[in-house]
């Protein structure tokens, strides 16, 4: 006899869970809505912790192992909390041949932070992107959501240090 399936309650009364639940319901609460649900959870909480992964899996009827598999497969999802500020360095071809390598080296030298790392004080997370599609602005970075084009390493470091 099949076990009657009940949706789990939200892990806490944090209102942001409602956003995640709504997105899942719009996808019919089916396994196909998994990636959409993870997007919603990451938008709401900034990253995906075990609690969020399990809640999404239980609601959609997806095994925890598969939720973890999907969340780690796609590079857009992050399982670690981000720093206060983020700096995404584009490493697309156009940026690469216009000096993205020097930007990464410069940030490492000045702020001791490598891609996918957060500074020791938790202020800044550095990420790389495959291509921002802002090739005409190469080399490009995104600082807290603002795209900056034709980046000069010194100016960028100064700006990040000032934050």
């Amino acid at each position: 006899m099949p076990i009657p399936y009940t949706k789990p309650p939200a892990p806490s009364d944090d209102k942001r869970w409602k956003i995640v639940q709504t997105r899942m319901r719009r996808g019919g609460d089916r396994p196909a809505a998994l990636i959409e649900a993870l997007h919603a959870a990451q938008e709401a909480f900034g990253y995906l912790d075990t609690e969020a992964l399990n809640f999404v899996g239980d609601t959609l009827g997806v095994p925890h192992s598969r939720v973890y598999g999907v969340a780690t497969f796609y590079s857009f999802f992050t399982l670690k909390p981000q720093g206060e500020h983020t700096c995404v360095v584009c490493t697309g071809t156009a940026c690469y041949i216009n000096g993205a390598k020097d930007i990464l080296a410069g940030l490492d030298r000045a702020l001791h932070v490598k891609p996918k790392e957060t500074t020791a004080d938790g202020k800044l997370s550095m990420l790389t992107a495959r291509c921002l599609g802002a090739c005409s602005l190469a080399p490009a970075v995104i600082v807290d959501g603002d795209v900056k084009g034709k980046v000069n390493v010194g100016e960028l470091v100064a700006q990040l240090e000032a934050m």
Partner: protein
Amino acid sequence: MPAAARPIRRRVITEEINDEAPRASAYVCEAASCMSAQAHDITLRLGERAAEAGLTDVMIKRVGCLGLCAAGPLVEIAETGQLFGHVKPDDVEGIVKALKKVKPTDTRQPQGPFFEKQLRVATENMGRIDPENLDDYIERGGYEALKRVLSEMTSTTVRDEITRSGLRGRGGAGFPTGLKWTTVAKAQGTQKYVICNADEGDPGAFMDRSVLESDPFRILEGMAIAAFAVHATEGYVYCRAEYPLAVARLRTAIRLAQRAGYLGAGIADTSFNFDVQIRLGAGAFVCGEETALIASVEGRRGTPRPRPPYPAVQGLWDCPTLINNVETFASVPTILRKGPEWYAAIGLGKSKGTKVFALAGRIVNTGLVEVPMGMTLREIVYDIGGGIVDGRPFKAVQTGGPSGGCIPAEFLDMPVSYESLIELGSFMGSGGLIVMDDTSCMVDVAKYFQDFCRDESCGKCVPCRVGTTQLYMLLDLITRGEATMDDLAQLERLAVIIQKTALCGLGQGAPNPIFSTLRYFRDEYLAHIVDRVCPAGVCTITPAEVMA
């Protein structure tokens, strides 16, 4: 709520100040590249300044990509074709003055070779319409094709017209679109799907993003026509999460089209039903491969599976599924409006029509261009692209992304088509053209692409998962000046094995950058190995004394 406290709706700025046709209009480019340079502030400031100057008969309109991203943010005076580049929000007086001067007798002047040498089909509305305004789209012939298809044509005649136009898949491989549509239409099954592949993962390519940001209704119209031709009722647009502006505009377009009856049940007062949903990618390059894309739409890890069965027979949820690229769908409405013969007359040999290219790298006019197939690389790079930055010598142009190759200077006069690029050991790909000058080391470029493939390999098949890493390590040895001729032989042997045994296009194409750089720039490899120098001065070579 008092009027002043209400949030300003973005629509306000695009509306005419009065109801009469405007005497002059300024088009402000609000695509991603210009947006990141405060283009939206320019639109707002321009509106304010025009009002202060007492101009009541002008229109300030935000439009999609004007193409010449290098000079952004861009503003165009539509009546005269006058173009303002590098505009600053605080400095719009020149544009206001130009708006004052426009006379009703003015005609559009040529805007220079960057614009005049192009032929716009898929991008015909780019920079002309407000991407979030359905009326603007309809005014420029939008939805004429869909209405004609639904009222006068059968699914067979639609497929026949697409076949006769000679349109081929613009995602890169160039599979004949008409044939694909016919396969899906004839496949068994009551439920069929149409998917638009907007997972533009090639680094250095931004055609799909610009089309989605500038003319989203065109994609929806193209998809609806395709759905009618293959008997599908549901569609998905699979778009990268890295393109927030494109996703937002597409969402708006879907909502507006649904409201106006161009999507949903009973489209344009007929019995045809079709609706579209957006699915966001999550940063996996391999999801551009169609079987991986389907897995991702189904909410699973984006790993490809062996074909056949092809998605046209067994795709999304095992139903027949049509997958085409953004640019392919964008070409469809124009082809049906102007006729397949018109389209088939453009182009070269088996490569019909036009192709959108994203010019990037060490080139003066970076931006988006659409040219007829068969134009030479020299015309694209020098006449349209304006040549190399700082007048440096041209070294190579990279096409086709990580599965493509580098074409050296001696083939600049070769006409561009699917066939000619393959002949040269490259690949059309989605259309990124990255120009390199003598400051780029070709071994380093090959290593860069190998690093990309290694990182993006989904890990399902061994040749790709293990092989790309091995290739990368060999290339790394070469760039550090620690390789021997045996390593080079090993590199070539391994590359052939991977090309022949990998499961999907990512793995099979991964060795292509190595093949093409070895073919045309073998001396650079030898310089690294034998002489232990990097001719371009990019690689840090371990000095020979240390090695000994």
